């Protein structure tokens, strides 16, 4: 049926039909090495379908139903090509995704190491393990979507998009579509979840803009869940070869990791940089003498990977913490004891770490001790011993995870050194309206983080007003001109600090006006109880709303002072921030079925100064839930032909509230030295800390049966197989299913 005959169809377009629409492909902004090989990534593929999700045509119709009906009729004539999904197979280049690049091995980055590398061979104890971390699907419940419209005659276009990064998208899509930045407005309305999956610039956004321009009418695109699973970025997908060097009494001397990272079929915005983001935390919170990290990025016939909550740091923390447990088992020591004796000593000021960057502040022991106390660690160990003693079918395991993060992205100078295209600053504008209300324009782009609340608190605290009087505007490039958006636990540490500095600027100007009105010198004023007051005569005072009104009226301003009370700050952080913490997970494993239940989960985090405790708790709860999901449930699986088998929420297992336990949360507070607020960041801590805590607990529950290896996710079958493998040929060991259970019962009775 021709396109004209299908009801409601406006047009069907392939890459050839849109040849003039895109002066450049989709942007990748982090060419992390000089010799990185970068494939061109067109919004519609021009030659080869490289992954399920690589679009070949777009249908525009009057309704979604009409478009789906027509899309079904689009016949694609294609020759089937071999695919490669396994990382090590792909590295052999027998199937090459991008002919022009000549290889799938597109990037290799080495941290360069620190300390004495010989230790990894000469240490008294050397633990070596390989760990696989499967691909994950980020699963914002609210999928992506966009609406492009414009005034073609004026060349002006607006893209309303479900994005975390309106400001960066304006720059990127301007390059891809050729629409000048001055004519392109990006609006990120209520975005819903992101988790890194909307920290990107996608083909559909570019297509919507190009089609709105070509057709002269608004074009809307909303993804469904299957499209989300196929074409929205995936996370993780890495293999680590890990080495821990240590001593018999439990001192960790060095940590070394060599990683293979699945890039997918193309680079998305930050793809090659994601492993590197983890590349600075492979020492964990431990005081080690030697450090090594390198990774190789490999193309495969699968959805491109990119940032997923934690971005590189969960991958790192997982392998470190698995390795520390393996080390403790090897030397026969309690994993808590081993961790505690290796924690980096506290420091109030920034201190250079073994990996070469400055950690802003640290005080890990109190956090660690509090986590063990809340978990009733000793009591749990006793319970575990009792169950082991009685040969209970349901065994208890206790897992720990101590972590350090690198947040507050990022000092622009370091980003430059790391070859990132943009800076890491952020901006805030405060406009004090007459008669009491204050408008804030922030460069951060919240999508569930509660910036409206926290930013109102910062401004209200600073200006002596109530949060209700503060209106926070964000997520629109025409409203908040300057910004670098929201990702990487950066918003409070960078955008929040920018806002605090803008508050100071407002107060500087307000003080001049107050002194003028109160007829005293500025030095005679002090800020007390929410107003500038004359020292010794506190009743003589001016509040910010008073001064905002007089600055707006401008009837009598001091000489040289411009009307209107406002302040703008653009802040470039001098350092990253380094949150840390310890999580403890207690699980019960049914040794006959392999099923794991989380009995208790304790998270003690140190994210520096807290602006809003409820928001911090919410971040930890959500993050831990996602991490438990990663540990026990989620895994993106492809078949041999490159079809995504886990293509709906029926097969891709996102746990519900029924599977996620109540959590016991607490905090310690070690202020950051990077910013004056003292904040470090909390949005990714839960997903960074929890997967190894859970898996360590699962292994711990069955380690007495001989289980030491355990993949992610620890599905019932995987756990059952591990028990089977470990107990093979050992009759009477709890856990055997096939006829072993009655035998064991008889054995127990004899």
């Amino acid at each position, binding site marked *: 049926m021709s396109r004209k005959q299908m009801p409601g169809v406006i047009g069907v377009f392939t890459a050839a039909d849109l040849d003039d629409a895109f002066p450049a492909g989709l942007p990748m902004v982090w060419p992390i090495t000089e010799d990185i090989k970068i494939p061109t990534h067109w919004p519609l593929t021009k030659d080869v379908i490289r992954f399920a999700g690589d679009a070949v045509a777009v249908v525009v119709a009057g309704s979604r139903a009409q478009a789906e009906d027509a899309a079904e009729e689009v016949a694609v004539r294609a020759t089937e090509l071999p695919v490669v999904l396994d990382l090590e197979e792909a590295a052999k280049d027998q199937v090459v995704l991008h002919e022009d690049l000549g290889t799938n091995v597109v990037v290799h980055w080495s941290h360069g190491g620190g300390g004495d590398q010989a230790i990894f061979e000469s240490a008294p104890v050397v633990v070596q393990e390989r760990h696989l971390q499967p691909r994950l699907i980020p699963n914002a419940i609210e999928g992506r979507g966009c609406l492009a419209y414009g005034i073609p005659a004026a060349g002006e276009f607006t893209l309303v998009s479900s994005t975390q990064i309106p400001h960066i998208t304006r720059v990127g899509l301007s390059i891809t579509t050729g629409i000048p930045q001055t004519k392109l407005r990006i609006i990120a309305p209520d975005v819903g979840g992101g988790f890194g999956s909307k920290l990107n610039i996608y083909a559909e956004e570019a297509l919507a803009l190009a089609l709105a321009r070509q057709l002269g009418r608004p074009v809307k695109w909303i993804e*469904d869940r*299957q499209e989300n699973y196929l074409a929205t970025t995936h996370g993780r997908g890495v293999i680590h070869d890990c080495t821990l060097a240590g001593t018999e009494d439990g001192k960790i001397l060095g940590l070394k990791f060599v990683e293979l990272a699945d890039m997918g079929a193309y680079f998305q915005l930050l793809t090659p940089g994601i492993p590197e983001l983890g590349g600075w935390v492979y020492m964990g919170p431990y005081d080690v003498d030697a450090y090594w990290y390198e990774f190789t990025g490999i193309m495969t016939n699968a959805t491109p990977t990119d940032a997923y909550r934690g971005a590189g740091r969960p991958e790192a923390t997982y392998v470190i913490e698995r390795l520390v447990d393996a080390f403790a088992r090897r030397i026969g020591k309690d994993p808590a004891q081993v961790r505690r004796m290796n924690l980096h000593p506290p420091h109030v000021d920034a201190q250079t770490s073994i990996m070469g960057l400055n950690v802003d502040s640290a005080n890990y022991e109190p956090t660690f001790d509090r986590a063990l106390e809340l978990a009733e660690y000793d009591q749990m160990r006793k319970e575990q011993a009792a169950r082991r003693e009685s040969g209970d079918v349901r065994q208890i395991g206790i897992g720990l995870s101590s972590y350090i993060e690198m947040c507050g992205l990022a000092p622009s100078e370091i980003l430059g050194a790391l070859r990132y295209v943009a800076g890491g600053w952020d901006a805030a504008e405060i406009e004090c309206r007459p008669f009491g209300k204050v408008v804030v324009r922030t460069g951060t782009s919240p999508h569930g983080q509660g910036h409206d609340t926290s930013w109102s608190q910062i401004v209200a605290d600073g200006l002596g007003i109530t949060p209700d009087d503060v209106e926070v505007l964000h997520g629109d490039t025409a409203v908040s001109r300057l910004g670098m958006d929201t990702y990487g636990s950066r918003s409070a540490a960078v955008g929040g600090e920018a806002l605090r500095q803008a508050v100071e600027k407002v107060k500087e100007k307000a003080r001049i006006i107050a002194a003028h009105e109160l007829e005293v010198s500025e030095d005679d004023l002090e800020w007390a109880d929410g107003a500038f007051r004359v020292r010794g005569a506190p009743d003589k005072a001016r509040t910010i709303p008073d001064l905002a009104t007089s600055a707006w009226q401008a009837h009598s301003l001091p000489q040289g002072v411009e009307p209107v009370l406002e302040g703008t700050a653009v802040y470039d952080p001098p350092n990253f921030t380094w949150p840390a913490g310890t999580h403890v997970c207690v699980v019960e494993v049914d040794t006959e079925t392999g099923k794991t239940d989380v009995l208790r989960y304790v998270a003690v985090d140190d994210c520096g100064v807290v602006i809003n405790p409820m928001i911090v708790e919410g971040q930890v709860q959500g993050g831990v839930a996602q991490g438990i999901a990663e540990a026990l449930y989620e895994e993106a699986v492809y078949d041999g032909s490159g079809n995504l088998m886990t293509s709906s929420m029926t097969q891709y297992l996102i746990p519900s509230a029924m599977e996620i336990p109540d959590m016991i949360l607490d905090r310690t507070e070690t202020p950051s030295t990077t910013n004056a607020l003292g904040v470090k960041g909390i949005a990714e801590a839960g997903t960074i800390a929890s997967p190894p805590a859970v898996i360590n607990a699962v292994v711990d529950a069955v380690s007495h049966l001989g289980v030491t290896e355990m993949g992610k996710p620890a*599905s019932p079958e995987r756990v059952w197989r591990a028990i089977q493998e470990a107990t093979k040929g050992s009759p009477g060991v709890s856990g055997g299913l096939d006829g072993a259970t009655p035998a064991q019962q008889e054995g127990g009775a004899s």
Partner: protein
Amino acid sequence: MIPAPFDYARAGSVEEAISLLGSDPDAKVLAGGHSLLPAMRLRIARPSMLVDIGRIADLSYVREDGDRIAIGALTRHHDVANAEVLQQLCPIVAHAAGQIGDPQVRHMGTIGGSVAHGDPAGDLPSVLLALDAGFVAQGPTGTRTVAATGFFTSLFETALAPDEVLTEIRVPKATAGWSFMKFQRRAQDWAVVGVSAVRANGGVHVGLTNMGLTPLRAVGVEEAVGGGADPASAAARADEGTAPPDDAFGSAEYRRQLVKVLVRRALEEALP
């Protein structure tokens, strides 16, 4: 995620539904819609017409009927789970209905839909099979009762004719001992494997969920229990005659092991 085009007709009575079904061989009955509509949204199911029987009020009931309990085909899972008659006289059915999906599913999905869909992973079919339930079907020429043992013919296929409507499910009273074991990854999931064990109709019957193309009876287990075997030895035969699927939720091998554990536990619970 939008179904292919289809016609829709709402039936005011069973007779009208039968006549509508007779008018279009590709028509499908819509009850709660919780299996059919997702399949249509994925365009796996493409019926030309939906015959909506959801508003036929007199097909929703649970009542004692002699030595049986009669359940109207349109009774929602939530109402089955909360029916006092079932809780007292055939508790395994009420309990199993309460384990289906999540509260939303239980408030929309119906027992008749669950049976007529013939999904081997459904919770209720294997319970009804273990109970030797009777399924009352009404067609153009009248009404017949099909025994559960002959009802489930293959994957998503049943003994219902295209123009027949399932109207009632009849179960025996069974209070002597029972167990329902559903092993699932998430609370709202289908069973990876499910086991129902119940003392009914003068014997101990065991139904298996998701162990083959249809809901199954664990014949070997029933035989062993009948011969006096203890739960553990009887359970060792739990996978006899099964053909479990191999999918993301578990390999066939794993399911064969799992069913033995669950049957043993179910027998221990049902036959104290």
